[in-house]
């Protein structure tokens, strides 16, 4: 035994020398936030390097005679001939509960003037995604509070669901609504004191957006009381491309902390089109060979390695989850572009937003035909599944029939009924910004639709009627909604209560 301790002691002694060993180089050229460095022969890929004046960078291109480093921060403080040093560290960012409520930049520095961040842990920004063994299939819902999505394109915890559409079609709004809904659910859950309640924390990564847009988003989160559960990572358009390239990985590292600590988190990447453009810019400056649309060859890997890090872990691995809502902006509805097809193939489904619908006032402008969730329905609440099961088919049939019926003068009764129902469902799904609806209320509304309570109301008044019913469910009809929430299923008794409540509402509405 004493031999062994002696052995270990010796090992420690041999370690504890105070001399440091670093590897250095000199900047040979410096342009567009990228430094070419001579030397640094022992630098690792993705290692942090240190320039003078407290500027840091990352080694991205390891070539035979030189190294290409992207500069993080102010490159104007550097000049050719400056010495560069390896650090032996991979880039990492602060993580943990202390990050909540904060706005940080791509390397985790606070930019919200709320003082230093209370965090004692750091995670590397690049990490290999969890393998197959610790993963579990998606089986818990992540409710967006948006009726059209929760009913037809349900999202589960650990899923990666793409939000895709042209510019200004309400992509960001859907993501922010979802974040606000999580905050609302968290607050109710925490108040209920339920020990099994699992809050969902959110991370919003803004890439290449205008500062004014980011400020507006943060304000919306604050005004809706969501900021306490949110981390915002901002790499605005005016930031150098290196920061824009890093921001999603930094946000993902913060999300991974929740994942690995048995908690649930949601991450929004807004948006990955701009992320790909930032990466293209860096790659062109680094003189990497470019391919289609001048993107480098590994642009697929850029997003696959990011999105693969979202997962639902099994019980043995702590039961945590990281759900991702990446956003992609298309040009004139073209989903067959290079970056859109790449990301579509990596994700578990997409929410496709159409400009046409948006302009017609059908908002959120979710396209029924092109949107899909490949795994989410396994996670829907039973009661909700019961009432929403048919709605996607009904709506799809409606769109088809509506196109046909333009040529048809007299329609048979069944077709007419389908058209009537479809038109009312479209109206029911219209929903304003930042007003997510709890799933139990959605259940009540959809149940009323399924059970013909809206049929006698004129189509033009459906939106108002739905609003009024939602209102009713949060006042006089509170009890039945609470029962649906607690039971999670529509039993005979609850259905009776529901019928009575909706009849009561209808009398007052008419």
């Amino acid at each position, binding site marked *: 035994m004493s031999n062994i301790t002696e052995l270990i002691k010796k090992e420690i002694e041999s370690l504890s020398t105070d001399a440091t*060993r670093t590897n250095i180089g000199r900047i040979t050229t410096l342009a567009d936030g990228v430094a070419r460095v001579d030397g640094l022969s022992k630098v690792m890929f993705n290692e942090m390097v240190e320039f003078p004046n407290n500027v840091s960078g990352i080694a991205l291109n390891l070539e035979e005679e030189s190294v290409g480093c992207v500069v993080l921060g102010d490159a104007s403080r550097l000049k050719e001939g400056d010495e560069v040093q390896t650090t032996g560290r991979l880039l990492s960012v602060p993580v943990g509960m202390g990050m909540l409520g904060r706005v940080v930049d791509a390397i985790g520095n606070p930019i919200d003037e709320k003082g230093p961040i209370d965090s004692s842990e750091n995670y590397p920004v690049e990490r290999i995604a969890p393998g197959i063994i610790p993963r579990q299939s998606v089986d818990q819902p992540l409710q967006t509070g948006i009726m059209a999505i929760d009913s037809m394109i349900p999202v589960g915890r650990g899923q990666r669901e793409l939000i895709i559409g042209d510019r200004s079609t309400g992509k960001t709004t859907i993501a922010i609504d979802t974040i606000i809904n999580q905050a609302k659910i968290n607050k109710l859950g925490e108040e209920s004191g339920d020990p099994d309640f699992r809050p969902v924390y959110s991370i919003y990564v803004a890439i290449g957006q205008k500062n004014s847009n980011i400020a507006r988003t943060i304000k919306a989160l604050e005004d809706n009381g969501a900021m306490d559960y949110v981390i915002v990572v901002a790499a605005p358009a005016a930031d150098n491309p290196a920061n824009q390239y890093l921001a999603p990985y930094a946000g993902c590292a913060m999300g991974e902390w929740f994942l690995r600590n048995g908690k649930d988190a949601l991450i929004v990447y807004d948006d990955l089109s701009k992320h790909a453009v930032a990466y293209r810019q860096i790659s062109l400056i680094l003189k990497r060979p470019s391919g289609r649309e001048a993107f480098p060859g590994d642009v697929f890997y850029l997003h696959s390695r990011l999105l693969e890090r979202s997962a639902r872990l099994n019980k043995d691995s702590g039961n945590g989850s990281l759900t991702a809502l990446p956003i992609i902006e298309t040009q004139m509805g073209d989903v067959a572009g290079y970056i859109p097809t790449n990301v579509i193939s990596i994700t578990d489904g997409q929410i496709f937003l159409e400009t046409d619908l948006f302009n017609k006032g059908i908002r959120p402008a979710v396209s029924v035909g092109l949107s899909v969730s490949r795994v989410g329905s396994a996670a829907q609440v039973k009661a909700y599944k019961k009432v929403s099961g048919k709605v996607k088919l009904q709506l799809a049939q409606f769109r088809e029939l509506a196109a046909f019926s333009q040529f048809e003068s007299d329609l048979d009764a069944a077709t007419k009924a389908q058209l009537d129902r479809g038109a009312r469902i479209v109206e029911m799904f219209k929903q304003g910004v930042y007003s997510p609806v709890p799933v139990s209320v959605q259940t009540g509304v959809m149940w009323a639709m399924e059970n013909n309570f809206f049929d006698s109301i004129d189509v033009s008044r459906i939106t108002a009627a739905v609003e009024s019913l939602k209102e009713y469910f949060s006042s006089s009809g509170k009890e039945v909604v609470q029962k649906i929430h607690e039971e999670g299923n529509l039993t005979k008794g609850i259905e009776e209560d529901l019928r009575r409540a909706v009849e009561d509402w209808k009398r007052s509405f008419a």
Partner: protein
Amino acid sequence: MTASPRIREISKKLLRLTLDEEGRMVEAKVCEVLETLRANPSRYHKLLLQLFLDHAIRESSKGLAIVEFAGKPSDSSIESLKIELSRQYGRNIDVEMRENLDLIAGIRVKVFDDVYEDSASSRLRPLERALC
């Protein structure tokens, strides 16, 4: 003009021609290479010479340890440093001594792009960074 990979390859070959068995550059061999190049000038003559020079500078700095110190180390410790470095790099390493009072106390050894440092100023650096 930027050098094509082929020119780079040739310049490296030229360097290899000037090394002896222990990997050191030999002056006579360098002269020989220069003469041959002069006798058969190519379109890339100047560029090739430039690259050859870069390699030569790099190569010679690989065999040289620049030892900066504040407080001169003893001759015996310099000798043992030389032996240790030569062992580590698998080639004969010459030592060049330079006084550098910025170190405050201690020693800093630079071999090509490796730096070994044990000095007062290097220990103060993290402190300085944490404070500002």
